[in-house]
């Protein structure tokens, strides 16, 4: 299974600013994903980070607000731009193993707790 780390683990930011979250995987993976988890809620997929091409965004999420980079098979970043208090959430990175017989299980990073004041 892949081991995933995220930086920062938490941050408090002022509205109108931007924060970039980093996600590092300890092995090469086919797919990387970014999720948002609002307090006490389930996970919502923001986008799929594609290596070498633009990210694929889910309904309700746009590139201008959540630009994503994926420069290689082990690393991705998510930027939360022009933040407002509604962006206060936990942001989780995940990766799908390219092996293991195609079970498509995803492994998750520890999350980044973002508070916007």
């Amino acid at each position, binding site marked *: 299974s892949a081991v995933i780390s995220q930086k920062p683990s938490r941050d408090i930011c002022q509205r109108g600013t931007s924060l970039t979250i980093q996600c590092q995987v300890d092995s090469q993976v086919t797919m990387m994903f970014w999720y948002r988890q609002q307090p006490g*809620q389930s*996970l919502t997929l923001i986008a799929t980070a594609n290596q070498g091409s633009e990210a694929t965004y889910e309904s309700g999420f746009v590139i201008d607000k959540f630009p994503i980079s994926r420069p290689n098979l082990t690393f991705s970043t998510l930027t939360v731009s022009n933040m407002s208090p509604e962006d206060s959430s936990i942001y*989780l990175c995940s990766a799908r193993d390219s092996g293991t017989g195609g079970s*498509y*299980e995803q*492994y*998750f990073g520890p*999350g980044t707790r973002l508070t916007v004041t």
Partner: protein
Amino acid sequence: AQTVTQSQPEMSVQEAETVTLSCTYDTSENNYYLFWYKQPPSRQMILVIRQEAYKQQNATENRFSVNFQKAAKSFSLKISDSQLGDTAMYFCALNNNAGNMLTFGGGTRLMVKP
């Protein structure tokens, strides 16, 4: 579109007893994968158990087992000999055969009482 529903927002169980968490889902795919994830207060999502839809045998991982009823689209998680460390949010999730879309249920908060 695929959906996952967990009808129990909160549950509690006494230490050493058994508890079952419910999950139902809907998908148009014939082949797919189902998962249970655990999220303790540390926020780390941990994969507990997985089930391939084409396998009739229920998956088991130590104290964790599932009851997979494909026709009823039901996928419950049974935790035997509950331990205090099992206290967490539990999420049921469905991944279609293409592997890109992992859909989560709303979660069940489990409290194990001493």
